């Protein structure tokens, strides 16, 4: 059966590895839902023999339930291709039959966790744009089978396409691909070092506290009982303890983001082919994401101070998706160099237009407004504590120059650029970030004015695409209106494919 050409028209099951994959999914789900109960069994049962028996029964029941569930799920899952659509028939108690026409399929992505990698199978995710809940996945398919399925669907879809009349040669060419980025170990290390470590710290704190919170009713009690004995010591060596804690937390955060980057971006490869882009990445969970060229809505790239020292950027390629902020199906490539970004842009967007004349600054009143909200008002509130703490309150005045410096930094980087084809928004505080979109991909234009802005004849322009929006704050009203008219005209007169 394996040697003959694959025929998808008859209903077929997944690879039997799927049982394992589904089992893992089930176990994970039950543990996530019941882990406090399970934990309390283990903790509460210490040294009590009847309790140990109960734990045993619970564990056996738990395992049996999960195993039975996953086997049933496996045997009740069929998929086949019927004409111009893929049909999935599944469900044990509630049977559902999902029918997705090829025309609505956005992308077909592959994902592999360790189990998949051992057995050389992949999980297939079929993503459609627009309608919610119309996303389907197949837990495990032999890799060759999955590739055959994807190629078949994409070829059929291309033939259905109304825009490009694809002939056989183009389908052939679509398979040809050129690798533009491969994250080597040294680059991976750089990416790990230049991650946002503050974010990892926040994540760790959030995790630790929420876990403690669920495990013990009262963190305060827990902490004081744990650290009570060190109290004297701590007071005597406050500075030492403080430094020690800072170094410990910093090291943990650093290692956390490093390990996280390695797991996520290991052996990342980005390649371009005729139809679009393809990304493969990950150590334990290996993912393959593809994006069609015409579906790309925004290309953004940004950098932070550390990453800038390596002259690296994080590139993000967003495509139309059903989820509001769902990053699913978006390609994120940390550790891209400028030339690689330029290559992606020229591969996805019409390159001949990719040059901008002038940089349009936003109004300097943005600076004063931000200073008012983030500098003056908090500082005044701080000064109000004068009545409580006396002259120490004057230290709040130090806040003002700090915020002024930050706001000035932000203002100096905030600008936008446009030409007949593109719109580009530039921003950044310590780092820099750029968002680039084609004007005809915009689907809604919004002008906003506060009372203050109306008095100063300014406006904020928001440009929505099917994958996020660009904001141009504090622009002169004349410019904002000209932009609005121009963009609406360009969108309405452009008949190219946009999503």
């Amino acid at each position, binding site marked *: 059966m394996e040697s003959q050409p694959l025929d998808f028209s008859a209903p077929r099951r997944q690879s039997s590895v799927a049982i394992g994959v589904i089992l893992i999914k089930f176990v994970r789900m039950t543990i996530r839902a019941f882990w406090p109960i399970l934990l309390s069994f283990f903790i509460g049962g210490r040294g009590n023999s009847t309790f140990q028996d109960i734990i045993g029964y619970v564990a056996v029941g738990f395992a049996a339930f999960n195993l039975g569930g996953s086997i049933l799920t496996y045997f009740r899952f069929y998929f086949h291709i019927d004409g111009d659509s893929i049909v999935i028939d599944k469900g044990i108690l509630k049977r559902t039959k999902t029918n997705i026409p090829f025309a609505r399929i956005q992308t077909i992505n592959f994902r592999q966790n360790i189990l998949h990698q051992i057995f050389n199978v992949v999980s297939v995710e079929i993503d459609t744009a627009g309608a919610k809940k119309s996303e389907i996945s197949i837990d495990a398919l032999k890799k060759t089978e999955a590739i055959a399925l994807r190629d078949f669907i994409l070829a059929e879809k291309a033939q259905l396409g109304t825009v490009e009349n694809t002939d056989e040669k183009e389908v052939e060419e679509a398979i040809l691909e050129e690798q533009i980025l491969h994250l080597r170990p040294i680059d991976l290390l750089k990416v790990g070092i230049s991650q946002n470590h503050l974010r990892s710290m926040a994540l760790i704190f959030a995790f630790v506290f929420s876990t403690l919170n669920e495990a013990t009713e009262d963190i305060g009690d827990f902490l004081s009982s744990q650290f009570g004995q060190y109290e004297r010591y701590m007071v005597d060596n406050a500075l030492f303890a403080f430094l020690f804690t800072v170094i410990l937390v910093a090291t943990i955060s650093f290692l956390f983001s490093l390990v996280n980057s390695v797991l996520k971006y290991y052996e990342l490869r980005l390649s371009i082919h005729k139809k679009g882009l393809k990304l493969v990445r990950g150590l334990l969970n290996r993912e393959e994401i593809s994006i069609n060229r015409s579906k790309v809505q925004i290309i953004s790239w940004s950098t932070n101070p550390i990453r800038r020292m390596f002259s690296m950027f994080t590139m993000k390629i967003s495509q139309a998706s059903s989820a509001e902020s769902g990053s699913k199906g978006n390609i994120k490539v940390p550790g891209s160099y400028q030339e690689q970004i330029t290559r992606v842009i020229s591969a996805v967007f019409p390159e001949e237009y990719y040059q901008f004349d002038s940089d349009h600054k936003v109004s300097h009143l943005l600076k004063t407004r931000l200073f008012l909200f983030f500098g003056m008002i908090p500082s005044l509130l701080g000064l109000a504590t004068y009545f409580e703490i006396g002259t120490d309150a004057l230290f709040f005045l130090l806040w003002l120059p700090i915020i002024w410096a930050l706001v000035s930094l932000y203002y100096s980087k905030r600008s936008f650029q446009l030409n007949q084809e593109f719109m580009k928004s530039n921003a950044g505080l310590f780092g820099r970030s750029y968002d680039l979109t084609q004007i005809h991909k915009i689907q809604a234009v919004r002008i906003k004015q506060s009372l203050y802005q109306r008095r100063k004849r300014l406006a904020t322009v928001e440009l929505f695409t099917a994958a996020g929006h660009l904001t141009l704050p504090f622009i002169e009203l004349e410019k904002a209106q000209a932009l609005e008219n*121009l963009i*609406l005209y360009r969108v*309405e007169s452009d008949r190219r494919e946009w999503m």
Partner: protein
Amino acid sequence: MSSIFENLPINLDDLPKVEDIDFQPIDKKYLKVILIGNFLFFLLLAAGLFALNFFTDELGTTSYLISGGAFLLVITWNLIITFLGFKRKMYAIRDKDIIYTKGLIWFVRTSIPFNRIQHAEIKQGPIERKFKLSSLKVFTAGGQSSDLVIPGLPSETAQQLKDFILRKTAEDGEPTP
């Protein structure tokens, strides 16, 4: 004016201008719908506040006075905003797009070209039904943030608008090679 963006092959002065359009106000009856809705909301809020004061023993008449006063202030403010802001709720249908404006303190104007509309639907709440009004909701792809709702349309108008938009979307949306 055309020198605002210098590198464009299009003359900005020749483009149809959004700021020159005559906008249509929405149906005046919708003001009543908002007022009734707000009234019901504040009634519930007042009941909640009263219950809170009632069941908290230590608080005397002063707490009634304070919460009552704050409550009246909020209601007055809400009334002013509702009346003045109502005039700002306007819409316009052009040949190729649909535009809606609103907002007294925060003025917002959203424009969606017909060829970017995914679908449109009509909604009617219980109070709106009494006044034979409907809201028209226009959906775009990818998330809710750019969707557009025009409230307070007479039901027949809403239906006609929806049919018009869907027809336009089908016509304009067709890609031509």
